[in-house]
């Protein structure tokens, strides 16, 4: 396993140490593995808490800061945080105005956040939750665990974070978060497996001439394994199911093309060069686009595409200032 690690079991604790020393504007609670803003939540501001398994950096810790999250609970690599962690994050940032939990739809994340919300409510903190379930690689059904949550999470965190910063109340922030969440669709492709440090070897073996289509962000195999294709063909494999799933013409949209951790930027841009015309052809009017590593799967080579149908309010809040390690701009 070719990684910068000491003991594979200490990866999270040690990465948090690096984050703490690199970012004085963040507070890292090493015991609970919670990253929060160093400044306490402004009185009356709704707080946003997200979290999940680690290995998806900059998600979520990299999105803590002005205009986005107030705290993130970092689980072990690919393992949802425990209710205690989420509760600690929640209590650390509640100003009394309530807390929005932003949860990616995985059984573990949902269950642990649910338990944390119960505990927080019992402790007198008002909690609303939004569950992001945007991965069109997974057939949606009430009989199953439903769709995974992937790239739309970044967009939800950004837009809901901006609204909270403006002083909206918990109900309004939650409502918008759910609207953004419902407007997003994602699709991922992996060229290689990732390697979970504690496992020490690639999660799956992938021959040199094959790729996995419809992967999530936990190194799980995808929906199907096919022959390695050109960037042009891969772009189609990503765009088509998203557009198809929307059904109606999409119109104005925010687009995120995220590398999965092992794919360099030059390839991501090349891929986006193929994706952009396909989106245009399909009636997606790309208003904003982010390209880079935003939601990753350790060292997996691959990329995931997210399209969020965006109205004017969403675009305005997308453009609002944000100051985090992973996303940073001013109005």
């Amino acid at each position: 396993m070719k990684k910068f690690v000491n003991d594979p079991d200490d990866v999270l604790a040690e990465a948090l140490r690096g984050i703490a020393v690199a970012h004085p504007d963040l507070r890292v609670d090493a015991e609970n593995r919670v990253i929060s803003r160093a400044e306490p939540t402004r009185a009356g501001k709704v707080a946003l808490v997200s979290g999940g398994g680690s290995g998806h950096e900059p998600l979520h810790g990299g999105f803590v800061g002005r205009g986005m999250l107030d705290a993130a609970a970092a689980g072990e690599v690919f393992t949802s945080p425990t209710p205690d962690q989420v509760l600690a994050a929640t209590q650390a940032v509640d100003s009394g105005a309530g807390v929005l939990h932003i949860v990616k739809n995985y059984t573990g994340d949902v269950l642990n956040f649910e338990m944390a919300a119960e505990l927080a409510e019992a402790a007198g903190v008002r909690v609303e939750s939004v569950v992001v379930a945007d991965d069109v690689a997974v057939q949606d059904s009430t009989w199953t665990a439903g769709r995974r949550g992937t790239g739309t999470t970044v967009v939800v965190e950004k837009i809901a974070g901006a609204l909270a910063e403006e002083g909206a109340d918990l109900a309004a922030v939650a409502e918008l978060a759910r609207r953004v969440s419902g407007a997003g669709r994602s699709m991922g492709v992996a060229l290689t497996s990732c390697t979970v440090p504690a496992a020490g070897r690639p999660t799956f073996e992938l021959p040199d001439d094959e790729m996995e289509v419809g992967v999530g962000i936990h190194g799980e195999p995808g929906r199907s394994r096919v022959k390695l294709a050109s960037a042009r063909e891969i772009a189609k494999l990503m765009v088509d199911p998203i557009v198809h799933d929307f059904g109606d013409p999409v119109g104005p949209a925010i687009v995120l093309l995220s590398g999965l951790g092992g794919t360099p930027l030059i390839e991501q841009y090349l891929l986006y060069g193929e994706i952009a015309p396909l989106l245009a052809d399909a009636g997606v009017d790309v208003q904003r686009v982010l390209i880079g590593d935003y939601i990753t799967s350790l060292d997996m080579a691959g990329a995931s595409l997210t399209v969020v149908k965006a109205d004017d309010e969403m675009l305005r809040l997308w453009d609002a200032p944000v100051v985090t390690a992973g996303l940073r701009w001013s109005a």
Partner: protein
Amino acid sequence: MSDAVSIDDLVAWIRAFRDAVHRHKDELTRLDSEIGDADHGSNMARGLDAVVAALNPAPASASELFKTVGMTLVSSVGGASGPLYGTLFLRMGPALASDEVDAETLGAALRAGVDGVIARGKAEPGDKTMIDALSPALDAWDAAASEGFAAAARAAAEAAARGRDATEPLVARKGRASYLGERSAGHLDPGATSATLLLEALRDTLAGTG
């Protein structure tokens, strides 16, 4: 007394489960690699290490024991298995309010626990989860409970193993494996495998009892 177990027996069970999980850690992770995210072995090992540490000194009552086990799992595992295994034990505690734990009470406690898992996780038998090992194990336990602990535990462990094996051809409908759709068939479910270890540990611990 041949038809009741002591706190020490129950603690021994949990320790035996910890040991079994450590012995099968790599296998659990490998199974989870195939249809999940390659962490079930380390999740369970981490949680049970914390549990064993929390059981020293041993709690005074069976209900307190299982409360500690459940709370520790919830707060140290994360993932899907943390809240689910945690709930299993948390729900067992109240069902063991009396100090006399015979085969029927332990069976009832296990059922309360598994009902809790089903309530939390909403999985049904056949969804390719730990329920596929736990549910038949309970039925087997109840059917054999009148013959005493050892017999009940033997029957339950066997039924769990059969349930685990039966997950292989299934298409997962719950948990992370469900994302694979049809590709989830052809693999054992990691949670059903660890649940079988739980019941086998019980069988081994109770082998000497009535």
